[in-house]
């Protein structure tokens, strides 16, 4: 397939010093413009899978192809040109200005003894402007809210101009409103042609995004399909070990994932 962005085949991963395989024979695919939601219980290896796809961790066996090339043979720079990684949370050590922080996304396109110029700075301002963040461009990174920081991490990934963007639990540290604003942003990005992978603890987010879903099980295997195929009541109930209902809610015009009660 020519529009295949990620092709993960049969990867196994174990953290050094541990017995358990976090990932065992995990496979999945991601096509251009697709959104893939990775679900799974705590500790099942969602973030590990994402880190392997970002080239931050090396699987023990199996292959990960990014735009047709095996990432084990690619440099950090080559991977970063094709994939942006949005971490769960950025813990700042120094207070860069918002603009300088976002500008760091140009790193994969900048030489080791070089720095981005005025043109790239202007492009950053444009992206911030488009995301409605133009007003805070001059602020210190420490003086903005958690929701705004999340937006900056996304802006930084956009500035990388990658094919795919990987989000590690993008909604974990956000309030209810910001969670859904981030999901809306992700959906919009997919429609602009980015291929997106997110990990989440909320199956309802996968239903809201309404594209592809994958579940990482405790045994390290992965199943993947459309979110309707994958997110069934039986499967979710068994993954999370409690009764979970999926209902079509007429007033909202969508299917939602709910817990009947405590």
């Amino acid at each position: 397939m020519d529009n295949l962005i990620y092709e993960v085949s049969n990867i196994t991963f174990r953290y050094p010093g541990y017995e358990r395989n976090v990932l065992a024979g995990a496979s999945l695919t991601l096509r251009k413009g697709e959104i893939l939601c990775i679900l799974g219980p705590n500790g099942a290896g969602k973030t590990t899978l994402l880190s392997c796809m970002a080239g931050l961790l090396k699987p023990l066996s199996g292959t990960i192809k990014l735009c047709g090339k095996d990432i084990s043979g690619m440099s950090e720079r080559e991977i970063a040109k094709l994939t942006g990684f949005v971490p769960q949370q950025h813990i700042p050590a120094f207070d860069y200005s918002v603009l300088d922080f976002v500008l760091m996304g140009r790193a994969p396109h900048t030489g080791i003894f070089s720095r981005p110029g005025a043109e790239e700075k202007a492009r950053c301002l444009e992206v911030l402007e488009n995301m409605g963040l133009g007003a805070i461009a001059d602020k210190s990174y420490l003086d903005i809210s958690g929701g705004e920081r999340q937006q900056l991490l996304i802006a930084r990934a956009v500035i990388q101009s990658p094919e795919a963007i990987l989000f590690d639990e993008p909604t974990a540290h956000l309030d209810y409103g910001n969670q859904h604003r981030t999901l809306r942003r992700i959906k919009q990005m997919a429609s602009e042609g980015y291929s997106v992978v997110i990990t989440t603890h909320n199956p309802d987010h996968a239903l809201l995004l309404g594209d592809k879903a994958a579940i990482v099980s405790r045994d390290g295997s992965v199943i993947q399909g459309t979110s309707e195929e994958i997110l069934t009541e039986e499967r979710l109930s068994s993954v999370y070990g409690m009764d979970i209902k999926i209902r079509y809610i007429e007033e909202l015009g969508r299917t939602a994932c709910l817990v009947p009660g405590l």
Partner: protein
Amino acid sequence: MQRSITGTTNKHTGRLVIPVLFVVLLALIMACLCIGKYQISPAECIRILSGKIAGTQQTWDGMDENMLIGVRLPRVMAAVIVGAALALSGAVYQGIFRNPLVSPDFLGVSSGACVGAAVAILMAMPSVMIQVSAFAGGIIAVAVTMLIPRMLRSDSGIMLVLAGIIVGGAMSSILGFIKYIADPETQLAAITYWQLGSFAYVDNKAVVSILPLSIIAAVVLLAMSWWINILSLGEQEAKSLGARVNVMRGICIVCSTVLTAGAVCISGTIGWVGLVIPHFGRMIAGSDNRVLLPASMIIGSIFMLFVDTVTRIAGPAEMPVSILTGLIGAPFFAWLLYRQRHILR
């Protein structure tokens, strides 16, 4: 969150910071050339310097020339170089280890250089060999520090910091042993003097032979200043932005070590400059290493020059420099930490 003082409040003055600091440094250099127990008037000073540069005929006092060119100028230049080198390597270390509390000697370079110098003093070597031995000691100590994480099969920055503590601790024990067996009349005083740092016996040849290497190291670090911003995001994020973290961090460590070891060769070990000056730099120039690194260099030079001139003119006998940098640096650092308490958690 409260507004932090290291903020970008001075962002708009950012472009001006470097030239303003540079002018201050030049003015201070001129002042320090004139001030001393033997006074030279500023007019005479300018006449001698411009005459020397232009090669015009001598219209000034020979005593003044000897004092200025032979004694004071080398000493002032040494203070400028050492201050800049220590502040630059401190700022770089704080960036790449994303820890504002590290100083250039935390991988063991200063303690290693001290051991190197002490061994040479103990063996009654000539002063050139003491400098070579100090330089080698500093480099070897850092090399050992870098090897420890490799032996433990870990490439994390934390492991490197802990390895630095191990090497630093071992080095100070060795130094203690050398001081214990050294001849208290002659050798012990020389070792202590070396340990506390001084510009009183600056060796012109040492400065000239170390300068080219230091300039190369400084140019490399300044050229990488934007990437040091990237490294300061942490290993994972830097890697995901395409940085070869280990290679880049390695280059930064090698260059910073060369700078610090070179500075130790010129003046002995001088504490506090590499820790405090980058903080002060962040306060007036912001955190962006593209501005912070050159700003820290100039502030380091200004501070070192000021401290050395005070030791030179205050009191009947010259004090070692580290005594004064500590007396000024410690309370100053406490004040900086007080102002940064919101971001240092």
